[in-house]
């Protein structure tokens, strides 16, 4: 039953990230929310790969093979790439935020030029 809550944590992280993306008005907060969402996805992969008593999939100075259990390696490799890409896209989004602030004088997405008020 406690295992269930790991998946619930993933859904909650995605929920918080998504709700902030939808309802926050500040572009910086939206970037932070996307990072939280990404953390949820990363946690999901790691939870999928977990095995009880599993060590990291590295054979250097590992226990003997009879006792050795390892977690799944492929999700970890995917997370590894995702973290660097997350950094790069976050930097790019922040640069766009800089440009939007210079062009509009605000980071509020309601007050950007060319955006009509749909509320």
């Amino acid at each position, binding site marked *: 039953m406690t295992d269930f809550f790991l998946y619930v944590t993933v859904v909650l992280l995605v929920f918080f990230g998504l709700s902030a993306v939808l309802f926050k008005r500040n572009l910086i907060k939206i970037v932070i929310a996307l990072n939280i969402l990404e953390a949820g996805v990363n946690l999901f992969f790691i939870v999928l790969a977990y095995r009880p008593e599993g060590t990291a999939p590295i054979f250097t100075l590992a226990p003997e093979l009879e006792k050795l259990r390892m977690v799944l390696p492929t999700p970890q490799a995917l997370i*590894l790439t995702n973290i*660097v890409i997350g950094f790069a896209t976050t930097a790019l989004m922040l640069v766009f935020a800089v440009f939007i602030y210079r062009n509009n004088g605000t980071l509020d997405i309601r007050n950007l030029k060319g955006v009509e008020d749909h509320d």
Partner: protein
Amino acid sequence: MKLASFLSLVLITGFLFVAINKLHPVGAPLGNPDVLKDRSSAATDIINVNTMDDYYLRNSQTETGSNNVVSSIVFDYRGFDTLGEATVLFLVVTSISMLLSLLYKREDVDDYEFRKPNEFPGDVSRIISYGSYLLYPLIITFGVYLVIHGHLSPGGGFQGGAVMASGTALLLVSALITRHVHRTRRIFSFFESLGLTIFISMGFAGIGTTFLYNFLANGSSTLFGRAIPFGPNPGFLNSGGVLPVLSFAIGVEVFFGLSIILVTLFHVARHRKDME
């Protein structure tokens, strides 16, 4: 509009909660947990292996010569994926550098002087200046260690490069940035391109079999050709085939790429502060 946002949020979250029931319980992924114990004596064991991950765990050591299964996946089995990712990073660095260079003039930032710790400026405390001088060599050493031991211990090109780039960030926040760092942005971009070029060249070097084939591993007479038997071992630096080379290439690319991002962002922030 707000109602639509709220409804989509509730729907997506609800679907995710429902989807939890269809997932396997935590700690019981597909495959045999004892795949390392139940094994045949064949060099490439596909008998007791049901899933892709178990195949990697069982055979990556004999196939790629790398103790670190994650590294062998990142740089060997899924090397093409990593090439795409390195390209994405390269693209992001290029676009950020191009966009932000519109925001300041080169001659405005050229007069930043190198500051020694005892000439600390008013806005940086002496603890930060001296501390960053002490920490910077250690950070670089740790990053280089992570890159070099990428095929033996936790680490690899991405992590090592990011750690080394955090050293650049430390220099920036402690205001020890030199005029040379700005002048050498061209050198930074040269080394970043060099990293990606080494990666692609190593891919083409193995094209006799396939692109990014690990032609140096397991018994070849080259530097990284040591054959590694299956099982725990103390770790040998001269194993792994093309893995250490690719790890080094990615480490160089990530370090210099992230450094370019940080230096460019710093110059924009500094320029704005000076304008006010």
